[in-house]
């Protein structure tokens, strides 16, 4: 639940939404992704006001503009790694050949190119999350939403995933990360928005080393 929350996230920002469990982090991400609708107020992404969109239009908006990375990966277990990535491109109606090339390219970049023909059950947690990231990126979304992407991973693997997200951000990708791990968020993101009981309690910028630079 969110209450009286107003914020703007700029293009190319890597923003962390922080807060304890139940603070409204995931709700905020769901609203941005168009998976949920606000009872009042507006959500605008890239100039598109989501409140006015139908379910089908929201789905099309998600395909085109949003890449979602979940805590528990949410891969389709009966599709291969390659097809898990490819299916998002197919849903968006992208051209086949180019999508295949990009899917393989993303998997290679994320270090799991060799696993393309494997099925998710054979992968480690970190590998699954990389597949999820590749899937989130295949359509070149305006925003990547990452909901506790390291929550189901051990600390080393979590670090690797965060480094991947940073690398993406450095190439201009807007990323909105929900996390309850302040240390991790402070180290990798440039802006931290803190929520408690659905209200904005703090909006700060960091230097990328965990140090706050503005308030």
């Amino acid at each position, binding site marked *: 639940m969110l209450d009286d929350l107003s914020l703007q996230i700029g293009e190319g920002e890597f923003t962390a939404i922080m807060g304890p469990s139940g603070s409204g982090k995931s709700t905020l991400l769901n609203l941005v992704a168009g998976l949920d609708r606000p009872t009042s107020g507006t959500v605008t992404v890239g100039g598109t006001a989501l409140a006015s969109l139908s379910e089908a239009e929201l789905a099309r908006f998600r395909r085109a503009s949003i890449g979602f990375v979940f805590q528990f990966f949410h891969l389709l277990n009966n599709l291969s790694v390659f*097809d898990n990535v490819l299916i998002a491109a197919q849903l968006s109606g992208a051209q086949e050949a180019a999508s295949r090339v990009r899917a393989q390219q993303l998997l290679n970049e994320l270090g799991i190119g060799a696993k393309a023909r494997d099925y998710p059950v054979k992968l480690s947690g970190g590998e699954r999350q990389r597949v999820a990231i590749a899937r989130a990126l295949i359509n070149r979304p305006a925003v990547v939403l990452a909901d506790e992407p390291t929550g189901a991973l051990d600390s080393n693997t979590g670090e690797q995933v965060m480094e991947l997200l940073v690398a993406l951000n450095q190439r201009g990708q807007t990323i909105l990360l929900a996390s309850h791990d302040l240390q991790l968020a402070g180290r990798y993101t440039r802006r931290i928005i803190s929520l408690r009981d659905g209200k904005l309690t703090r909006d700060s910028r960091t230097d990328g080393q965990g140090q706050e630079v503005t308030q």
Partner: protein
Amino acid sequence: MRPVLTKAFADVRRHRLQTLVVFVIAALAITVGAMGGTLLVQTSSPYDHAFADLAGPHLVAVFDARKVTSNQVAATAGLAGVTATAGPWVAAEVPFEKGGTHLTATASFSQKATLTVLGRDDPGGSLDRLEVVSGRWVRGPGEIVVTRSFAIGRAVLVGDRITALGTSDKSLLTVVGEAVDANPNPDRAWVASGIVASLNPVDAPLSYVMAYRFRVATSRADIRADLNDLEAAVPAGAVANYASYLDFRDSYNFNNSLILTFLLAFVVLAVGAVAVIVANVVTGAVLANYREIGILKAIGFTPGQVVAVFVIQMLVPALAACLIAVPLGAIASKPLLDQAAEAISLPPPSPLVPIVDVLVPALGISVIAAAAALPAWRAGRLNAVDAITTGTAPLGRYTKRRVGWWRVPGQLSLGAGDAFARPVRGGLTAVAILVGVATLVFASGLYSAILKFNDLFAQPNFQVTVSRLGGYSDLDTNEVLQRQPETNLIVGVHQLAAVVPGQPDPVPGTIFRGRSQQLGYRLAEGRWFAKSNEAVLGVVFNPYHWRVGQEVVVRIDTEPVHLRIVGTCYCFWTLGMDWSTYAAVAPNAKPIDYLVQLRPGTNVDAYVRQVSAAQPDFLFPQAISSGTGFNIEAILDAMVAALALILGAIAGLGVFNTLLLTTRERVRDIAILKALGMTPGQVTAMVTASAGVLGLVGALLGIPAGIGLYRYLIDAMARLAGFSISSDTFTSAIDPGHLLLVALAGVLVALLGAILPARWAARTSVVNVLNLE
């Protein structure tokens, strides 16, 4: 047992929709089963009951009173093989009218212009008793008792007055009663013995009718041997006609056997479909509830108790279904029972048959329990730890698939893959559709075959039949008919039974006088007869498997006649031949029935009135009704349509159930796809595509299965009817266009079954399912 029941009933309450599906399909199948069982029991035994209760005779022989005396006939009671007799009763063929309308009687496939009136003062006796079911027996002149089926068929009521024609005084008789006996033919009536001669039409012969029971009479050959003894004991040619109890029984059983054949086939199909769906439901439940099964075993449920939990979940709705299905089956079978009873002139039997009402539900329950127990056995064998750890059954290697062809939208290729994500479940569902499609193919084929049958055996090109009474000459009849300007062609006919030497049964023959080739009977092979001693063979009753080109010898009026078969036609008689062939053995014979072809544009009813007015007492013209007189198709048609609907519903519910299970099982995947941008419409398309694939597979396999079933049952029907035609005759009756429509219907049924699960899938809440908060 208590924990098993507690768990099973809790699951029943939790899975209300699934329970409802099982309840509906079980109710449909048990209804069909109860209907089939009731008909099987109630229609296979009444003839035997009637035969026993009314002391039915093995043989009823008709003696020509011109060739034998009453005493000579009575003396046949002393023959060595005879154990009991009744009669002889003097009999006459008498035409009747009521209120100006000629009362015809149905006999086999045609109408008869007269009733056989027997003089009988007492309906009782030790053999061939009659039971008066309405009114009373005759007490004197001026009274008549008719058969119950005649009374029903011709709307004659006790108290009505009917006029005997053919005599100068035109006796008026009051119908005082309706009677039944072990003879299913309705064309009989009884009067006081002293008045038969006064009713006999001028110049018509009287006859004596005697009923016999023999020491040995189990087969047609036995009856033939007994008849030979009888014929030897009386002057040559004195036995004019006869009918055995085997003929009566076959005649009665014919229609019911056909209906039963179809019904039982449907019962098997319906029960099979239900077993498949129940197995499918339980398979799904086991796969989806690994963790729960593990927990049950961990807290102490034995493998048998785990199996029992699943079986009881299926038995609860099945038992509830029995409560409504048994009375429904009884209600549905009542019209058929009534009709069957009417055919044999007996009061309709009760549709409540205790043995059926117990046995059919018991069998249904057993099948459902077995179908549930087999997949539940898997649950019983699961390792508790593995089951708890795994949570749900892992998908097998066959379920891993590619995103598919890029040209096919992703949701369709994903949906198509989902159809067999659980191969057993998908296969079982396809089988349910297969059964439905096979039924539709069969129903469509049967309907087409009936149309083709009607077309092949449609009435040839004559519009009126005219019967004359003995008192009126052939010459005069011809003159009356020729005098009508609308008359185009007159063909005299005579029906006879041709004895085949060395064979127990004679074959029916029709002798034609005149240009019979112009009557336009449909030829199957060869040509129409053109001269003496040539014959055309009917394709329907060809018991001795004669062929075109074959020379056969038959006995007509005790004389041997050599015949060469020159063609076959779609006719109900076995041999058709020219009058010249008959004249060689019966030079003085004249036809008493005439087929009249009218000039085009003639008003048939007006023509009938004209001829009737020209000679109202001795000529009985009748307009020919269209069709073959083969009226069972209406019942079969309605029954097949109803059963096809039932099986279609079962198949549709099967698909519904499968997709419900699949959708529940794949709810997480659906939510992920929605999160990735799949629209509700695409989700609907994906689930529907899955149903479409199941429907297509079921339809493609169901078509050959249906054709096979159709051919098998058509042949079985032909065998029961004693027809010599086979399904090959009607193969072309199955229209490829119909098959395409049926295949589409199969897919449509599957898609209909998918509507609700698809809508539920489309409404899946991503947030709730993926637990995003």
